[in-house]
């Protein structure tokens, strides 16, 4: 990516100036995920001007796009050639951008089967806190030249700088898909998902709520047909199934609508995202739960104290994030001290003057004067 590009040069100039006059900048794309993470600090740095797909070669299975490119536009372009981002990133609004997708690092329903955002990042161009435009990784699948900096940008929430451009691995869309529904309790659903995941079955996504387990199969036609015959359950029609998975991904379906109502009625109620070892038995926490990723991602609507939820997640070997609701006690779980020290030093290595104020990852901004 060349700094001759006016949109990029404008960002470089702005960061350079901020570095000199000690201003803090809050990176913002389409704003679709403004609700997520810690509160932004500083003047808004709008990066939507840097947009467009720089290159797309279907036979190379890679697409390179600037951060301000609308996610919907990118996905439509891939779909035209029968390809997709297999991790089905949530948009949370029409304004969602490619850069925001990488910075938030959130993946949709197929995460457990296909990997997350970072698994598809092949390379990136970063505008660091030193106002340097740096490229890491590339456009090829295998690349171990230098440290894999591009992949740590996934979920970095702006802490390391502006993700100006990113190259992503893409894959052909599955030739066949089928969604099945089963009546089952939570513990049995977790167990069933783990058994199925251990067998050569094309399980691509799963969700459990309200004693119902919904499973999506995806792959070669023969493989999906064979799995449908083997697993049983009730097959859901293509259109309602597709609507269900989109509603789950975008958090517009019944469970999440209920969570929203709950938080309006009760300010202490939060929507938690728990990331746990997949086989963790149901947690004894008050509130309503929806499980995804075979049990590895659990949504909890609860007014339980923050420490109670975090402790339960930590005891199970995972962590808990306040996804929506009162963030006064912090959004993210703090890493262990040795790791937290490395993270702090790493943020300083990219942004010594704290221009980006640690992004929306931490509330104690490192390095800022």
């Amino acid at each position, binding site marked *: 990516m060349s700094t001759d590009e006016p949109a990029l040069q404008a960002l470089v100039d702005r960061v350079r100036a901020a570095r000199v006059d000690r201003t803090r900048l809050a990176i913002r794309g389409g704003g679709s995920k403004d609700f997520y993470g810690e509160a932004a600090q500083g003047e808004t740095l709008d990066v939507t001007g840097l947009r467009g797909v720089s290159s797309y070669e*279907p036979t*190379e299975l890679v697409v390179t796009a600037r951060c301000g490119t609308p996610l919907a536009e990118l996905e439509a372009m891939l779909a035209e050639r029968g390809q997709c981002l297999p991790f089905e990133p949530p948009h949370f609004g029409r304004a969602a951008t490619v850069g925001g997708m990488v910075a938030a690092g959130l993946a949709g329903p197929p995460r457990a089967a296909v990997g997350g955002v970072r698994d598809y990042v092949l390379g990136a161009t970063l505008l660091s806190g030193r106002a340097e435009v740096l490229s890491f990784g590339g456009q090829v699948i295998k690349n*171990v*030249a230098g440290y894999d900096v591009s992949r740590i940008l996934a979920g970095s929430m702006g802490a390391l700088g502006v993700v100006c451009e990113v190259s992503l691995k893409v894959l052909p869309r599955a030739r066949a898909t089928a969604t099945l529904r089963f009546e089952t309790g939570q513990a049995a659903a977790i167990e069933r998902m783990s058994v199925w995941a251990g067998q050569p079955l094309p399980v691509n996504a799963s969700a459990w709520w309200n004693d119902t387990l919904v499973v999506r199969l995806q792959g070669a036609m023969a493989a999906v047909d064979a799995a449908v015959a083997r697993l049983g359950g009730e097959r859901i029609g293509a259109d309602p199934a597709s609507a269900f998975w989109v509603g789950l991904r975008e958090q517009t379906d019944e469970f999440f609508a209920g969570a929203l109502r709950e938080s309006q009625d009760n300010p202490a109620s939060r929507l938690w995202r728990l990331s746990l070892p997949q086989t963790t038995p149901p947690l004894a926490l008050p509130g309503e739960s929806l499980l995804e990723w075979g049990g590895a991602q659990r949504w909890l609507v609860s007014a339980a104290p923050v420490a109670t939820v975090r402790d339960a997640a930590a005891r199970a070997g995972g962590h808990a994030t306040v996804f929506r609701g009162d963030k006064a006690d912090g959004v*993210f779980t703090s890493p262990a001290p040795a790791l937290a020290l490395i993270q702090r030093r790493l943020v300083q290595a990219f942004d010594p003057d704290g221009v980006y104020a640690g992004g929306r990852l931490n509330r104690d901004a490192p390095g800022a004067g």
Partner: protein
Amino acid sequence: MNAPPPVDKVDERAARAARQHEVVAALSALLPARCLLWQAEDVAPYECDGLTAYRAHPLVVALPETDAEVASVLHTCHRLNVPVVARGAGTGLSGGALPHRLGVTLSLAKFNRILKLDAAARTARVQCGVRNLAISEAAAPHGLYYAPDPSSQIACTIGGNVAENAGGVHCLKYGLTLHNVLSVKGYTAEGEEVVFGGDALDAAGLDLLPLVIGSEGMLAVVTEVTVKLVPKPQLARCIVASFDDIRKAGEAVASIIAAGIIPAGLEMMDKPMTAAVEDFVHAGYDLGAVAILLCESDGTPEEVAEETARMLDVLTGAGATHVEVSRDEAQRLKFWSGRKNAFPASGRLSPDYMCMDSTIPRKRLADMLLAIAQMETKYGLRCANVFHAGDGNLHPLILFDANEADQLRRCEAFGADILETSVRMGGTVTGEHGVGIEKLGSMCVQFSPEELEQFAAVKRAFDPSELLNPGKVIPTLQRCVEGGKMQVRKGLLPFPELPRF
């Protein structure tokens, strides 16, 4: 009688001996006598890894047996300001485990236990010295396996795989080491325990696992790895396709991908390589072909039948002169045995060979092979080629005789030319073998001075004293200038203030 060595050489030796005495004394307090080597004949086996062209004796070799010993060795080395080079099985191909003359080589060979295999969670927690293949063998009774399969998998360790982000022949479909590891436990240069990743699919805070994986022992010393296990496909079939033209073979690779197929494996060998491996393993390859492709499909029997039929269509349409589908598992393994023995087979062609490892966009495969053919003439050396064609990763094996000084020099120039050509084609200097010591010069071509300086800052965030495997992976800017290899952007040379000759 030999002339006496110059005075500064004598001084250096005396200083090294004194340093050795000091470090041995300090480590003797931490480790049993059997875990410490320093006599020249004892440390000689550690003088190189799989890249034998570079050798050095370490000051001391430490072979700790427990995590506590690793922590205390690191802590003490940090206190004494001694470099530490971690080492697994020593199968690395880029000199990443080349000892430091004034450093401790930390051999983790004794960390060879599988700590926990959880079939329900499909994970295995293993010590870093466990061999790659041993994990799959332990998982086999549960119908599971560990997917990444570098060709050295019978010998290489998972710790080494983590250090290099090792790939193998099935990466396109199953991913690299990174995609198959949940967490690593290790120690910082100061000897502090630290865990990257976790048993969940993501961990709190910045996700540093991708930085540590592939960091060639420069950010932390890894002692434990939790890997994902995946269900073993019920069936796998391999197609061998012959081509009479390099371009047609390259286009066949692109056509398979364009057809929406992600093969479990997709490999290419050129004619000299095919002849070499056929002579070695008798896999039944077509010796008349200019290039052969190995295309594997795996999954349920129905899936494999569907995909194999589609691949055959594409290959025939792309001009394959001959295709053969493995009829059973024995024949499939036979087909692969040739590919997996490409390196040892090359060892019989020539006294020495140097294996390159760059990656290029798939569409440039044929261009690259033709460019290499021209380089053979230019440098007066032969080259046999195997490619992980599915992911564009090349392994040209340059054949030479190390006993002839000029051949090593020409071989290095040949290799550098391949790497620089790869970068120009939009690729990278190393796909899976790592930078180590071997490709330091080429890093100057791929990255700008600012990017190299950012890498160095990343290193210092983990290891402020820069004691873990110093001198590898990230070239100093001075080295780039002296080697005459500088990335030139916008026609301006960086560091105009530095003299050039």
